[in-house]
C-alpha cells in the first residue's frame, strides 16, 4: 500500500497534466459542439432545403459510426487526400463533430416539445420566426433539454480518452506512459478512473446548478 502511495505521488504531476488536456478537450468540444448542434437543430427545424437533408445525413452518420473510427478517419485518413491536422486539432474536430450530432438531436426534440401555441403567441405579437425562436421557444426548450444535453456532455468527458490513440497526451495516454515506466497498471488505471469520475461529478454539479437556475426563471 505504501508503495502505491509513493507511486501515485510520483505519477501525480503527469496525471494532472493529462487531466488538464482532458478538460481542455472536453470544454472546447462542448462549446463548439453546443454551437454546431444548435445550428444543425435550427437548420432541420426550419427545413432549410438541401442543408436540412445534409444535416440529417451528418447526424445519422455521426451517431451511427464509432467515435474511434471517426478519429482515425480524420487523423489518419484525411491526409491521403491532402487534408492534414495536428493531433490536437484532429481530436477537437472529431469530438466536436461527434458530440454536436447528439446535442442537435436533444435540442431538436426539446424545441419540438414546446407547444405550437407558444409559436402562435409569439407570431401574434408580430415577432418573426427567429425572434420567436430566440426569445420564446429556445429558452423554454433549453430547460427541457438540460438533462439530455448533460448526458451527452458527461459522455464527452469520457470520450476524450479516445483521442489518446492519436498521440495526444490527455489523461488516458499520460496514464499509459507512466505505466510503461513503472509497470504498475492497477493503481494508475484506478487513479485515472477516479479523475474521470471526479470530473464527471463536478460537471453533474454544474448541471444541477443550471437546472436550478432555469427552474427559478420558470416558477410555478
Amino acid at each position, binding site marked *: 500500500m505504501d508503495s502505491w502511495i509513493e507511486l501515485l505521488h510520483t505519477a501525480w504531476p503527469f496525471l494532472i497534466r493529462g487531466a488538464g488536456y482532458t478538460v481542455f478537450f472536453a470544454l472546447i468540444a462542448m462549446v463548439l459542439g453546443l454551437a454546431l448542434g444548435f445550428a444543425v437543430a435550427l437548420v432541420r427545424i426550419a427545413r432549410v432545403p438541401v442543408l436540412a437533408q445534409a444535416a440529417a445525413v451528418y447526424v445519422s452518420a455521426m451517431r451511427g459510426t464509432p467515435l474511434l473510427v471517426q478519429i482515425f478517419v480524420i487523423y489518419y485518413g484525411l491526409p491521403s487526400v491532402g487534408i492534414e491536422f495536428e493531433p490536437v486539432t484532429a481530436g477537437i474536430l472529431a469530438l466536436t463533430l461527434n458530440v454536436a450530432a447528439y446535442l442537435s438531436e436533444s435540442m431538436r426534440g426539446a424545441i419540438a416539445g414546446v407547444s405550437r*401555441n407558444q409559436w402562435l*403567441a409569439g407570431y*401574434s*405579437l408580430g415577432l418573426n420566426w427567429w425572434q420567436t425562436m430566440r*426569445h420564446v421557444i429556445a429558452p423554454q426548450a433549453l430547460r427541457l433539454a438540460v438533462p439530455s444535453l448533460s448526458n451527452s456532455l458527461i459522455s464527452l468527458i469520457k470520450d476524450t480518452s479516445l483521442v489518446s490513440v492519436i498521440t495526444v497526451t490527455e489523461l488516458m495516454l499520460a496514464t499509459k506512459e507512466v505505466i510503461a515506466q513503472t509497470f504498475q497498471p492497477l493503481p494508475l488505471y484506478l487513479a485515472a478512473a477516479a479523475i474521470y469520475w471526479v470530473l464527471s461529478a463536478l460537471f453533474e454539479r454544474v448541471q444541477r446548478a443550471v437546472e436550478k437556475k432555469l427552474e427559478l*426563471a*420558470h*416558477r*410555478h
Partner: protein
Amino acid sequence: MISIKNVSKWYGDFQVLTDCTTEVSKGEVVVVCGPSGSGKSTLIKCVNGLEPFQSGDIIVDGISVGSPKTDLPKLRSRVGMVFQHFELFPHLSITDNLALAQIKVLGRKEDEAKKKGLALLDRVGLSAHAAKFPGQLSGGQQQRVAIARALAMDPIAMLFDEPTSALDPEMINEVLDVMVQLAHEGMTMMCVTHEMGFARKVANRVIFMDKGAIVEDANKDEFFGSPRSERAQAFLSKILQH
C-alpha cells in the same frame, strides 16, 4: 376594418372553412359562436394569418392577409390576439411578457415598454403582480395579463379565441369585465366565445358557424330574438337552456 371574403380552407381533403364572408367595421364587436369543430377558431386565426387559407382573401385595414407580399409580422403586430390557454411566456416575468414584443417589434426603449406594460397591467387590475411569473397567477389573472400584453402593442383590432373556455367559472367574469370595458372604449373586436351574456351585453353582431360555414350573420337583437336558421335555433336553445 376586417373584411373576410369567400375564405375556404382545407386540411388535405378535409374542408374546414367553406366560403366564409363577413365584415367587422371599425369599433364594432362581433361575436362568433357555434358548436365545437365548426371552424370558428380556425377562421379567427386566419384573420391575422396564423392559419393559412387556400382561397378567398381577408383584408385587414386595407392590407391583404392572403397576399404573399404582405409583411405578416408587421400586420400581426397591429392586431391583438388572445388565446384560449393564455399562452403567456412561462420563462418571463409578467413585466417582460408585456415588454418583449414592444421592444423587439415596435423598437420601443426598455423603460418605455415597461412603463406602458405597467399602465396596462394597472388597467386590468394586476399591477401588484408585475414581478411574478405566469405560473404564479390564476387562470383569470393570466388571461387578463394576456389581454394587456396584446393591448401593449396599440392594436387597431383585437381577436379573442375562446378567451374564457379554459377558465374556472368563478374567473370568467373578471376576464369578461375587461373585455366589456374594451368594447365600451370602442375597440374593434372579433370574439369567438360561448358567453352569450357577453354577446347580449356588448356585441353588435353575432355570427353563427356550423361545419366550417357561416350559417347566420345577424345583428344581436335579430340573432337572439329570431334566429333564421334551424341550426342556430337548436344551438341557442341548447346553450341558453339554463
